[in-house]
């Protein structure tokens, strides 16, 4: 019974989203409430699993079905479960969707039913990504996710939406197909563990001891996909355009959910520890470039979403820095920071969405002095921004601090310079964030169009409050969140450190 709760949670949104396509096309408030109810129900199920989760155990809520999915000669099956790495992100994803549905309640005007359907389909894919324990199953969720994303961007996006949607789709498809070759290859290699049977079972493959040369190839076949999705310099070129053209719903979910960095820990580090240790310096250097480059470009942007897009690149650099420093602090910091960055940048994107709905403009120059007409909005923006730049007492500080500490004393990097350079990135984030706040909210009301902007309404305020509560909660009491991933992290770090000594010998 317990086991099928996870599968039920995963497929609930999609299955119950299908009826939305047959709802009344004009009177849409019913479909909105219906979708909200579904997503809240899913969240309730996810929370019940989070509460039952025992951090001292390994994989829980495991559910196996469809044995020998692709025929008898291959061991590919449907297997899902949650462990310390995924449980928090899983529950967090389930929280995101009701917030997004509520936050974009009025911003979508055309084809509301389909919009909600694709959002719920996206939820199923994302919950699947965080719980799949078979590489093939993971790949299916990972790529199926492109379909709702593609339609969300392409139908409800900005003026140049078709181009952005296609660019996103083709970019992601290409890199994932490269990963598919990697999955096939590791599956064939995994046959030695499995009585000669091709296997993509993650837990079995964890025992696989691959020679370094093969690990190195596989590492990159997987990493290119995840680094492009994250995105890390130099694979970041799709992101600003896609974020600028996407509807608020797609951007917020995109920012909130750190599927790629999660996958880096789960697959790259988990399956190829030796190669991960070997390439850690390279990835960390790319991370540092991302942190500083993203911050510098963000400073020069004139549109709000582009500022945040480049700031995301910068923040993502911290995550990969944290993962590839290979200390417990840094990796736990990275996992927590995945949620943190989602909260802060997600709230910022949400607020920008509210602004866009009122003013139909993304350009910083069109705003100014908004604090006078929307004090509530300004306050929330301020909190999100301070969380984003890592003010102590808010959540961003905890994650960044842990990552930098971990990177500083990392035995694998053996060099404190990276941490110092990363710290410069924290300072730079203040440099581009504060001027943005200043340009939007401070000063005089220069434009007449801005005089009649209304403040956040109750619905928007409620969404923002949920974000703020979590931002402050994690900032003040991070330990319950950190505990969830403690054991999983410790065992993975140990594995990497053992393997790294193999390479250096």
């Amino acid at each position, binding site marked *: 019974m317990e086991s099928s709760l996870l599968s039920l949670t995963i497929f609930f949104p999609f299955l119950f989203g299908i009826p939305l396509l047959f709802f009344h096309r004009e009177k849409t408030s019913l479909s909105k409430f219906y979708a909200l109810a579904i997503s809240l129900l899913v969240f309730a199920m996810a929370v019940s699993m989070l509460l039952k989760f025992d951090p001292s155990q390994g994989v829980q809520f495991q559910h196996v079905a469809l044995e020998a999915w692709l025929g008898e000669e291959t061991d590919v099956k449907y297997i899902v479960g949650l462990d310390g790495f995924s449980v928090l992100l899983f529950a967090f994803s389930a929280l995101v969707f009701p917030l997004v549905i509520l936050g974009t309640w009025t911003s979508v005007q055309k084809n509301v039913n389909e919009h909600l359907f694709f959002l719920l389909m996206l939820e199923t894919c994302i919950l699947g990504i965080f719980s799949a324990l078979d590489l093939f199953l993971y790949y299916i969720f990972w790529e199926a996710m*492109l379909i709702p994303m*593609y*339609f969300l961007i*392409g139908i409800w996006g900005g003026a140049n939406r078709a181009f952005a*949607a296609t660019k996103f789709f083709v970019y992601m498809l290409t890199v994932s197909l490269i990963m598919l*070759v990697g999955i096939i*290859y590791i599956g064939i290699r995994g046959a030695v563990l499995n009585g000669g049977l091709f296997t993509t079972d993650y837990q079995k493959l964890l025992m696989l001891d691959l020679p370094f040369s093969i690990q190195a190839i596989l590492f990159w076949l997987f990493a290119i996909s995840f680094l492009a999705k994250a995105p890390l310099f130099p694979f970041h070129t799709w992101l600003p355009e896609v974020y600028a053209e996407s509807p608020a719903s797609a951007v917020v979910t995109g920012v909130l959910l750190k599927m790629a960095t999660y996958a880096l820990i789960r697959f790259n580090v988990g399956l190829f520890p030796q190669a991960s240790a070997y390439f850690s310096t390279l990835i960390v250097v790319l991370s540092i470039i991302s942190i500083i480059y993203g911050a510098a470009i963000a400073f020069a942007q004139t549109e709000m979403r582009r500022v945040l897009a480049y700031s995301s690149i910068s923040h993502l650099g911290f995550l990969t820095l944290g993962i590839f420093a290979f200390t417990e602090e840094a990796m736990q910091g990275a996992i927590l920071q995945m949620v943190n960055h989602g909260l802060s940048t997600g709230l910022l994107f949400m607020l920008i969405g509210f602004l866009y709905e009122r003013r139909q403009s993304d350009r910083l120059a069109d705003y100014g002095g908004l604090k006078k007409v929307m004090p509530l909005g300004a306050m929330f923006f301020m909190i999100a921004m301070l969380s984003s730049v890592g003010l102590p007492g808010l959540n961003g500080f905890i994650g960044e601090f842990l990552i930098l500490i971990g990177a500083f004393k990392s035995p694998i990097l053996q060099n404190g310079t990276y941490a110092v350079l990363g710290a410069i990135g924290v300072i730079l984030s203040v440099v581009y964030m504060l001027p943005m706040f200043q340009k939007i909210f401070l000063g005089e009301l220069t434009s007449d169009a801005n005089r009649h902007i209304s403040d956040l309404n109750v619905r928007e305020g409620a969404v923002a409050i949920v974000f703020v509560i979590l931002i402050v909660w994690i900032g003040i009491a991070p330990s319950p969140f950190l505990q969830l991933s403690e054991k999983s992290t410790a065992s993975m770090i140990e594995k990497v450190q053992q393997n790294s000594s193999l390479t250096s010998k």
Partner: protein
Amino acid sequence: MALHDLFLALPIVFATLWAVLLLIFEATAKRAKLTFSLTTIGFLALLAMTLIMNEQGYAFGEMLRISPYAQFANFIFVLSGLLVVTLSQSYLVKENIHFGEYYIIVFIATLGMMLMACAANMVVLFIGLEIMSIALYVLAGVMRKDLRANEAAMKYFLLGAFSSGFFLYGISLIYGATGEMTLFKIGIYLQENGATPLFWVGLSLVMVGFFFKISAVPFHQWTPDVYEGSPTPSTALMSTASKAAAFTALITVVLNVSSQTDNNANWKFALSTVAVLTMVVGNIAALSQENLKRMLAFSSIAHAGYMLVGVVAANDAGYAAVLYYALVYSLMNIGAFGVVGLLEQHRAFTNASDYAGLFKEKPLLAGVMALFMLSLTGVPPFAGFVGKYKLFAAAVESGLSWLAVVGVLASAVSAYYYLRVVIFMFMREPQTETHFDGIALSSTLVWIAFFVFMLGIFPTGMLRFSGEAIKFALNL
């Protein structure tokens, strides 16, 4: 044992008799609608036979070889024929070419394909190939008064006849080299005596004949013109079932000469070159096509390339993957051509840009078409993905990872042109208000879409069938 022979070959015997009866009926009654119903009944009966019959063995003195392998292939052909016939009627009425003969010819083409899959003898193989091809030439030119259709039929006929010549010459050389016509005896002879240059020339010529039928590069030039000029439902048949038939026969031939081709570097090199060229040229040429029928023509070239990857892999997994892919490819391509045929009006409205705003006017039709496009791209959770996965997995398994990489990159390119259709349907405003009126989504298309989806999520059963079938491709 003549009676047993008849029983073994029951589907083929039945199909032949039914085709003759249909011809007589149509000649006397001239009722196209009734012929349509009778053809459908014939297809349904055949479908039932392929599903129920489980017999195996040689029939008619080692001329036919009935096995689960042939049954699986026949299932693909009959299903395709059935779907094409049901999708044809509204199109033929719309284009004023509603002749009863059309359905009979589709039926006869299917008979030819079944003969190809069951052939145990090179001559029978050739007869099957010709029955299928000649029927398809007629189908291409069924719009007699249309210039483009005449061009298509003429081109198809001349080049097809030319390639048949190659094929036949190849058979005669193989006979000269081995002294055998029966496939398994050729195999035995080769195992005992090895291959002579004469045999290699013969085999190459036979392969050229196959390459022409599956439109592999560089024997593909006829494809876009013929596909564009032919009536859309018959294009659907040409691009799917006839390719599937050529692939099943190709696999039978290759398996029987495998003592020479396995571990033969030249053979591997030649075949993988053709596969790579086919995937790359097909996908790149499709990028710039405005007309959807031409676009699907080039994409069908690319799909033949993917299936060739399975043949190059030359293991059971690879051949089984080709069978599975032939099935899902037939489904999704017939679906795509079905939508194109539905929207086509006297050769107009076949461009991607004519589909602008379809989602707004006919959301379900647009959704079904999008599903076919995504499945052809190879995006999970649709059947096209599982098929491609099996093909590329077989290539990696037999040490051809580079070929798999070329394949996945080529299919990434294909995303661009398939998605263009989706862009127009979903992301552009309708240009004219009226031209989608009166178009009703047929239930056949919904069923195809449903199967494409279900075969993507629950492929297990069908994969097992194809895997079982392939075990009988060589040994009974």
